């Protein structure tokens, strides 16, 4: 019997150790697993490497992990936005290392990590500072940079609706990095708005197949049979 539901956000993140590499879905305010991040903050694992498009704003989400000194490295495309005060403070004092990755390279590196591909050649960044030290190739007169997969120990994912098998749907642009991250981590933990019975999700609407998912936690736990 497969039932990936976990009773609480606290329980869902309880085994994340110090030094873990953790992917966190989201783009700006959209599709962020805020309750899982808060549970991770309270859990208090240290020296985390965070992989995410942004570095959080104000006191919420990834910003709260940076504020509490739990992050030693962040892999990110757009860490600086209006209100990203904790990232800027930690960057300036030198306590957080930044690996800056162009956004499409970030999502593709995550995608191939989940797809078993050993690398890809992209024109993005060719001839720029972000390609320094990387292998390059010229194919049909066009320059490409070799980029490698970006896997993680854990992925924290935000979806709309899930079932006990871990099949997931998303809300509008809240999808963003979540489906790729779900496939690219050793352990994928999903925060959903609601859970329905196995068989109740329209299979044509499932974006993330449950095979990629290990744990599902609902904002409101309904008593749904597996």
């Amino acid at each position, binding site marked *: 019997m497969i039932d990936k539901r976990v009773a609480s956000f606290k329980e869902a993140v309880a085994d994340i150790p110090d030094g873990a590499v953790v992917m966190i879905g989201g*783009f*700006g*305010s*959209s*599709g962020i697993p805020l309750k899982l991040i808060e549970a991770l903050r309270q859990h208090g694992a240290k020296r985390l490497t965070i992989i995410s*498009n942004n570095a959080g704003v104000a006191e919420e989400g990834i910003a709260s992990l940076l504020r509490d000194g739990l992050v030693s490295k962040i892999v990110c*495309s*757009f*860490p*600086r*936005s209006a209100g990203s005060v904790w*990232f*800027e403070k930690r*960057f*300036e004092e030198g306590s957080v290392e*930044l690996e*800056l*990755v*162009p*956004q*499409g*390279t970030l*999502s*593709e590196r*995550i*995608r191939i990590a989940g797809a078993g591909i050993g690398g890809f050649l*992209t*024109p*993005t*960044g*060719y*001839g*720029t*500072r*972000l390609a320094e030290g990387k292998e390059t190739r010229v194919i049909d007169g066009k320059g490409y940079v070799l980029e490698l997969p970006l896997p993680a120990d854990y992925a924290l994912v935000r979806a709309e609706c899930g079932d006990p098998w871990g099949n997931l749907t*998303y*809300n*509008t*642009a*809240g*999808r*963003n*990095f*979540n*489906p*790729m991250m779900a496939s690219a981590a050793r352990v994928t933990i999903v925060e959903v708005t609601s859970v329905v019975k196995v068989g109740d999700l329209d299979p044509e609407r499932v*974006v993330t197949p449950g095979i990629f998912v290990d744990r599902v936690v609902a904002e409101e736990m309904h008593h749904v049979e597996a």
Partner: protein
Amino acid sequence: MLRLNPEQMAERVAQDIPDGAYVNLGIGMPTKVSNYVSDDKQVIYHSENGILAVGPAPAPGEENPNLINAGKQYVTLLPGGCYFDNAESFAIMRGGHLDIAVLGAFQVSAKGDLANWATDNDKFPPAVGGAMDLAVGARKLFVLMRHTTREEEPKILDECTYPLTGTGVVRRIFTDLAVIDVTPDGLRVVELFGDNSFEEVQALTGARLLPPV
């Protein structure tokens, strides 16, 4: 000299967006361009976070925090629009499926190199987002920027001094003074606003310009 204001600059770019185009507008001033595309044209806007057919801002109270554009502003979806994940969104960019991208810039070189993601200030953390992917991927890259810095230093140069976003990627530059094309022969002025003279614009440019044909 006539210096267009940002609204007028956006309006000028909008004239060069053809009917039926798939377009990505960068954050900041480029986002204003959609306000000036005339109603007789059907233009489909792409947002890097995974939207095609981005619609206008929602009515107050109708905002969905998940439904935002690249600039993190609330938007809507037009009928016929759709959502996709970030990897597919950037496949759309890199794969050459977008007709036009409009980006802001710190500097553009005579060869069409673009610098728009970092300055030479190492204390200031950089952020690149989707700019490098758009620069290499869009079929036509338009740059929308003031002709000079606030200190009147030229932003169009023989070589960019700031870190590059992409090399040889810019097709057309829309400034507050003129419209300039990047051509195999060099930078060709295609339009001077108001009574601005070629010589006046050349004097504020850090690379040799070719006069309008």
